[in-house]
């Protein structure tokens, strides 16, 4: 996980510096969001059904018109579930009774496009967004206290919608509320996709 955080930190640095270098004054905003994530499909059915209240996202947005913005996003989410003791078939004639714990941390890093059909006027500005990139996935599975860990990188694609709510009529800062669907075709060790539906709330503010 330390390695993943280092990679994320470097990515964030590059995103921030490149956006601020190329942007005109007032064009670059930053989002910081609390993120609540709900596993979907195979992720929910076979790995972790608990929703995760432990996450956050950040996004650098460069508005190149009143309706369109590009940006870079990153995040962190921690998923965990402990299943009651059960007997698992672990070999042709081998069975293991154990409490099974699954622990997954994801760090998505994405390029994003945001479309605000009503532009940047109005008290509430709806938006649609889409993104794609890489998700660093740290998957740990424990039988009792005995665990194994797999670190990997997976493709991630995201579609989202939400609203920007400026603090004032002329303010470039405000609240952001929204939801995203994340497609993460993990497919490692037979575990399948790690798709999620996330809701987030945060603030945005100009950084240049």
């Amino acid at each position, binding site marked *: 996980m330390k390695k993943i955080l280092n990679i994320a930190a470097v990515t*964030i640095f590059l995103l921030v510096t490149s956006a601020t270098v190329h942007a005109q004054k007032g064009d670059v905003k*930053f989002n910081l969001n609390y993120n609540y994530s709900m596993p979907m499909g195979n992720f929910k059915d076979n790995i972790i059904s608990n929703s995760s209240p432990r996450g956050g996202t950040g996004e650098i947005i460069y508005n190149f018109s009143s309706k369109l913005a590009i940006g870079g996003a990153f995040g*962190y989410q921690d998923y965990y579930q402990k299943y009651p003791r059960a007997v698992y078939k672990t*070999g*042709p004639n*081998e069975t293991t009774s154990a409490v099974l714990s699954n622990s997954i941390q994801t760090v998505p890093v994405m390029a994003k496009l945001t479309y605000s059909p009503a532009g940047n006027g109005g008290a509430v500005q709806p938006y649609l967004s889409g993104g794609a990139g890489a998700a660093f996935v740290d998957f740990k599975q424990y039988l009792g206290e005995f665990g194994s860990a797999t670190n990997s990188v997976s493709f991630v694609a995201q579609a989202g919608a939400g609203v920007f709510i400026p603090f004032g009529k002329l303010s470039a800062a405000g609240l952001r509320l929204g939801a995203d669907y994340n497609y993460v075709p993990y497919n490692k060790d037979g575990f399948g996709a790690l798709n999620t539906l996330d809701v987030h709330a945060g603030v945005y503010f*100009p*950084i240049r």
Partner: protein
Amino acid sequence: MKMKSSALITVLLGVIVFVSSCSKQPLNNLTQDETRIYITDRDSSANFATYKTFSISDSVAVIHDQYANKALTASDSAYIAATTKYMQQRGYVLVSRSQNPDIGVDVSRVYSTTGVINYYDYSGYYGGYYDPYYWGYSDYGYYMPYAYDVYQITEGAMSVDMLDLKNASTNKKINFIWTGLIRGEGIFSADNADTQVKALFDQSTYIKANN
């Protein structure tokens, strides 16, 4: 409301470190009982209904890396008693070694400082120190027709093995027909012995004499 990028990066890194520190640590969310795992494996060709009697060692084999000796602590006695109890509950009759038991039962404590135990190696220890003392079939080698994956054992494990003595002379070897392995915290406790051996038998319903 505007921030310099260096300040922003500092804030972001702080947020990342804070959020990641909020992660659930799986090992911190386990009770002592939940840390334990119970693994059983069997020889699929063995028909447990054909065995009627068993004998169990009166001490525990302590296997430590390349060395083995015998011991009998309070915990060891509790494991032997519990194993005897559950074998009898499944219909097997306890006899002495001199009465030609169908099944020989050994209870072992296994430790490894190297961190890895391969069960083929483990079974090989019986061919050394324990063979003459335990079952008196020194002319025969031991054979495990099944094998666990290689398990990392650093804190120790408790093992119960069943050996096919009934067919030893026919097979010209002593086959392991069942192995139960207990790992986790608090396993070397006399208070926990019964429930742990029970767990091994509970997941091995095929162990049943046909009386």
